[in-house]
């Protein structure tokens, strides 16, 4: 069987030979940065390569929803591939979707920067349009502005999980915490773009705020139980901590419970980034002081919209800031602002 497979694989035409060489009729030249262009075909099928999984993650579910709405509006077919945070899975999905030739455009939400090279090569070879969502493609989460968009891609949709957003988040936390504080930062794994963006933001903000000290950085695997245990132990080991800054809602849930289990309710102020309905509930109950909103639905919508527009020759911004939500606020939502806030997820 494998012999057959191999033989056919070997004899098959090289993909470079087929299809999209030259500027044939019906294609549009699209600028993808760094002086490169793509001969874009009219977009009929879009693949959305999602880093997480819709199934276990409401944020991802909101992403899917946004992308579906845009797909309906622009009359394109959308297929969603979920990597479930597994690096290899996303790599393989990318390879399979690229080589299948079925998709003229893709939204990529990288799990980590490791699909960078593959996307850039894929663009050259298959002349597909790509927008990147959330985390940057080539690991430049700690930069800002148009630099967030990698060469080869149409645009980058995000902001909240990159340095600009993290910077705003941290500043907001500090602004609401007058006086001297020792804070614990609850983060994802060391490698994640968000974590790196957070650290970059810290370097920008913290030196100007000597009273606000981050005394603990706790890395987790993004899961609630992990956050629960680690925060419990960390608070035990460092009893002076009075602020927790959580990078994500699943982590917040664990942190809140850990505080409760130690009987420290009310003594530790929790800030978080997320802004989903679970977060709103936690703010409402007073367990979390404020939640910094993110806009998964808008961002996926904007990502797909950018692809369609670019393929029609319209110019789209390289960096679509604030997750593509035009009203995206860069401040946390404490309890008193909840009435005017509608969560996207």
């Amino acid at each position, binding site marked *: 069987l494998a012999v057959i497979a191999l033989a056919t694989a070997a004899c098959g035409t090289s993909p470079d030979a087929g299809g999209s060489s030259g500027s044939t009729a019906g294609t549009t030249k699209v600028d993808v940065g760094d002086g490169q262009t793509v001969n874009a075909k009219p977009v009929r099928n879009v693949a959305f390569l999602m880093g997480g999984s*819709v*199934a*276990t*993650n*409401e944020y991802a*579910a909101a992403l899917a929803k946004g992308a579906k709405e845009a797909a309906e509006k622009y009359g394109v077919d959308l297929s969603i591939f979920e990597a479930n945070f597994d690096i290899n899975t996303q790599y393989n999905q990318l390879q399979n979707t690229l080589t299948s030739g079925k998709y003229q455009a893709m939204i990529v939400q990288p799990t980590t920067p490791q699909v960078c090279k593959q996307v850039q090569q894929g663009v050259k070879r298959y002349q597909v349009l790509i927008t990147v969502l959330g985390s940057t493609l080539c690991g430049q989460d700690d930069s800002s502005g148009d630099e967030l968009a990698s060469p080869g891609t149409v645009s980058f949709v995000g902001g909240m999980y990159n340095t600009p957003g993290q910077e705003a988040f941290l500043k907001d936390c500090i602004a609401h915490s007058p006086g001297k504080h020792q804070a614990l930062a609850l983060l994802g794994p*060391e490698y994640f773009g968000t974590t790196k963006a957070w650290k970059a933001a810290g370097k920008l903000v913290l030196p100007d705020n000597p009273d606000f000290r981050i*005394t*603990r*950085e706790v*890395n987790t*695997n993004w*899961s*609630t*139980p992990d956050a*629960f*245990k*680690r925060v*419990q*132990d*960390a608070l*035990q*080991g*460092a*009893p002076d901590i009075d602020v927790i800054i959580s990078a994500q809602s*699943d982590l917040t*849930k*664990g942190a*809140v*419970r850990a505080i*409760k*289990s*130690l009987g420290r309710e009310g003594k530790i102020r929790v800030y978080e980034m997320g802004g989903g309905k*679970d977060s709103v*509930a936690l703010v409402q109950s007073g367990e979390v002081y404020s939640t910094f909103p993110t806009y998964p639905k808008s961002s996926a919508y904007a990502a797909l919209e950018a692809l369609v527009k670019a393929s029609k020759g319209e110019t789209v911004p390289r960096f679509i800031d604030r997750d593509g939500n035009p009203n995206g606020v860069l401040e946390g939502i404490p309890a008193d602002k909840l009435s005017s806030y509608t969560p996207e997820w």
Partner: protein
Amino acid sequence: MTVDQMASTTPATTDSHASRTKNTPTAVALHILTRYPMVWVALALAIAARIAYDGFLDPQNLRNILSQNAPLALIAIGMTFVMITGSFDLSVGSIFAAGAVVFASFDGKLSADLALLIAVAAGAAAGLLNGILITKVNINAFVATLGTAAAITGAATIYSGQQALLIKSMSFGVVGSNLIAGIPIPVWIALVAFVVAGFLLSRTVYGRAVYAVGGNDEAARLSGMRVGLIRASTFVMVGALSGLAGVLLASQIGTAQPDFGASMALDAIAVVIIGGTSLLGGEGSIGRTFTGLLILAIINNLFQSLAFDPALQQMIKGFIVVAAVGLDSWARSRR
């Protein structure tokens, strides 16, 4: 020589008969220490932890250690049974997460007790599936439980309606967080489970049968035991305990997701092996599992309480575990 005389001779080789020789507390303690080097290791680690970290013996810290590890304890207890029959179960992490999801899904719909029972029953059912696949369909335990793990996680995900389930009602938080006599309920549950399981293994016909099946299943079959049934029952047990562990966690942290238990299976097996129960079956005990759990729990607590570079943490943890087990194997070879 009479049997009564016998009962007071040379140290025993089976656990169940150990420490019966002289019954003064010091003699028993000494006996345990020389026979079970891992008890030494646990003790040494505790002392090291106390030196490195002032708050280690703080009642609150001890309470944290115990309650954080209660779910793992339950699963490791079940795993001890499975491993004594010479098998193992990689699906416990999935069952654990599924148990949490099932429990949380009834929040506001049923009473917490009923939800707990349903979650435990779901875990037992998953265990039964494993047991049937392994003993009736004769599928290798590794593949069978890896396969059911995937299937169970998938099912739990679909069941959860694709979202993290939040527990809102107070009553659903009781079993995970409330204290009885100053000790969290999960810790009580784990302690009761240790005692019951220890009794079951060493003092009942069922326990002996578990050892016999693991010691030589052909011999057990020839002497008329229902080898399949016994082995399957251990899977049901670990399934039910994993479901219960999931309930405790969900209640503790107030939320449930189908991807909770990723490393649970390997952790549980590691706990059992570090304690000194072998993968070959026919030997082991609940006391050993308890020791193994202590060792891992102390290391984790120490590292997480001190702000320790996670990479270095991981490295050192690996070394400690290997060194501890190496010491155990050395001590055994000297006996």
